């Protein structure tokens, strides 16, 4: 513990207030998401416990508000606070899953392409270029339009298909450089197998830039999920995420019911800002070349 506290990295972290703020925000949201079931006054995803009678209530401090719904309710009688807590969980599940899955896919494909080169590399990178040529949102919308059912799984799958490319490209660049280093040549000369060279010698040294991409990508994926749900192709209707809450709320903005958009919107912004602050520090720390 002592060594961590005294390490150069920790020192740089403690000297960067915005990074600390970012991490605090992130941890708060993580806590809320993990314990949403206990923190939330109601379960907005349980159809039987949502009552239409409580629809469109303003926040509790306004006229007509109810204490049971501190931030008001939406047009189906779901509490905004509860839905935000559950929506946070959705956002984080999607973002962590997508970042994990697509980074693994991207790393494996990118490394193989860069290490073996030739036709395999050309094939993988042309596939990556094709995906890269379209905007991630567009690809995800098209895929989700083709899927039969709606759910978190399909959202994650669709985003992963569009998202692995950036990892593949990043790792490919590093591997192309590292594979010519003397220690790799030495490993080849001493008869190490390809698998060992790739995962023991090359991968650990190619990872730092990937960590930076992952950190930034967390925020990107959260926004993407929100976008897809806003457009109505994301999460199921009965389980709104932050993006869908905003989509529902926008119909009522002109009717003066601002709370349905404002609170989930602020939450989304805070979360993305928090991640970006932390990612910024991580980038400076891990990527001194930039």
């Amino acid at each position, binding site marked *: 513990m002592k060594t961590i506290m005294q390490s150069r990295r920790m020192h740089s972290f403690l000297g960067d207030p915005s990074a600390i703020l970012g991490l605090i925000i992130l941890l708060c949201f993580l806590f809320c998401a993990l314990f949403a079931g206990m923190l939330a006054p109601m379960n907005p995803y*349980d*159809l*039987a416990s*949502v*009552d*239409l*009678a409580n*629809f*469109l209530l303003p926040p509790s401090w306004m006229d007509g508000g109810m204490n049971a719904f501190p931030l008001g309710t939406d*047009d*189906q*009688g779901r509490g905004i606070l509860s839905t935000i807590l559950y929506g946070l969980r959705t956002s984080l599940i999607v973002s962590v899953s997508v970042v994990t899955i697509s980074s693994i896919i991207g790393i494996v494909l990118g490394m193989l392409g860069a290490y073996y080169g030739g036709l395999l590399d050309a094939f993988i990178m042309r596939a990556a270029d094709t995906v890269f040529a379209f905007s991630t949102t567009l690809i995800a919308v098209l895929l989700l339009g083709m899927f039969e*059912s*709606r759910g978190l799984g399909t959202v994650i799958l669709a985003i992963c298909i569009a998202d692995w490319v950036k990892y593949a490209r990043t790792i490919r660049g590093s591997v192309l450089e590292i594979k010519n280093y003397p220690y790799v040549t030495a490993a080849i000369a001493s008869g190490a197998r390809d698998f060992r060279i790739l995962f023991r010698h090359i991968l650990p040294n190619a990872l730092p830039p990937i960590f930076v991409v992952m950190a930034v990508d967390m925020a990107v994926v959260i926004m993407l999920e929100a976008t897809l749900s806003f457009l*109505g192709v994301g999460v*199921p*209707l*009965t389980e709104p995420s932050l993006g869908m809450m905003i989509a529902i709320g*926008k*119909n*009522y*903005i*002109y*009717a*003066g019911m601002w709370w349905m958009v404002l609170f989930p919107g602020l939450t989304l912004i805070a979360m993305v800002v928090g991640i970006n602050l932390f990612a910024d520090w991580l980038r400076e720390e891990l990527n001194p070349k930039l």
Partner: protein
Amino acid sequence: MMRKLFVVPLLTLALAALPALALAKAELVIATDAPPKSMNPHAYSSDANLSYMSNFFDGLLQRKAPEGALVPALATSWERVDDLTWKFDLREGVKFHNGNDFTSADVKFTFERMKDPKYSKLLNIANSIASIETPDDYTVIFTTVKPVPWFAETMHQNFIVDAESSADRDDGDYNTMPIGTGAYKLDEWVKGSYVRLIANPDYWEGAPTYQVVDMRPITEESTRFAALAGKQVDIVNGVPVNLYERVKAMDHVEVISQPARRAIYMDISNMADTPFADLRVRQAIAMAINEEEIIEKVMSGQATLAHQIPDPPTIGYDASIKRLDYDPEKAKQLLAEAGYPDGFPITIAGPNDRYVNDEKICEAVAKYLAKIGLDVTLDVKPKSIFFDELADKKHRFYLIGWFDGSFDFGRSAEKLLHTPDDAKGMGVYNGAVFSDAGIDEAIIASSSIIDRAEREAALQAINRQSVADVAWIPLHYQQDLFAVVKDKDITFMPRSDRWVVVKEIK
């Protein structure tokens, strides 16, 4: 560098002035909630498309605002000669927009073209015609394949095209440039922006009041509201229900709320080997839905409770029919009696961009069904996908709306209630697949009854039977909301079919 700096603001100015100039030309701007999809009058049977077409074309007959009474248009009189024969006397001296004379040849050409799936979605009425005779230039005699009591009732929406020019126009032109006899000619159709209409000075009913009219399809509800608040439009067809109170509070606007003809209902199956086969299950579902709460909350009060599918002016409406009362306890009990004390999985399907608050109604229904213990999945999607799935009979329980343009429940029953039978053209919209031999028989029998009172009684019996058997669960009739800007002295009478027939606006 200096020159470049000067050009940029100038260009910006010019660009900013463009829409202003364009707007200044229209005397009347009407916002609607759906864009036209084609200028071929037979390409779509949706009321949105027909509404645009009613300005460029005329039918043999027309319906007048507000109730929709059937009156002469291109035909001056009509009669049902016998079971299968209909005779129309045509108006003389009418000209198409291109100067061609309107004659019986055009009528014959139109109905023959309507049989071609390449040009037409109005196949139902077209294919019911066995032969068309034109004894002279101004008489048309139709013979139908089987008795079609409502044949004349659809003649307001079968728009007549010009035979001479249409025959050899290419499809691209035919689908974008309407040549009809209507009160307005198409000046410009800017997709996604507006449709500009220019008055037809030689119109047979007299030239319309407004010379240049813009119809602006604005699909997004809040944008439609903003256009009204910003005084960019004079008439809005389809004021968002959620914003009713806000629009009413605007000083410069008058809001007209009138009952719509469209009934919104849950269609339900009775297919064997599904829980729905048991009448008690269907009754339980009907009793679980608190429709009064849906009207009050989801619809902001802008809807009327429906006890049956047809609306009061329709032949076959029966005022004595009462829907099942909301009673979740009784519903649970019925489910238990039917052998489902712990419920069963049920999917609620529906469109999310077709009817007022369709998605939210589905969601509310989902909640009510969850409360009686069913395991609910919600499956709402855009209408383009949803209606294809209905045609494939994919869903057993879904939300849909219906109004019968012909004011005849017999026609509705053939399409919605009769067992699906593609060969006979029956039950085409019976997507949930409800099937009852007795009802089928009664529907077929009713179409041969010529006496109006006798036929009405037969249709009422079918209607009563369908509600008693829970062949469907009526929810509500929509309320149509229109807004008219006050200080421009516009006389606008909304139509029950929601068409915007511009010649009726004074």
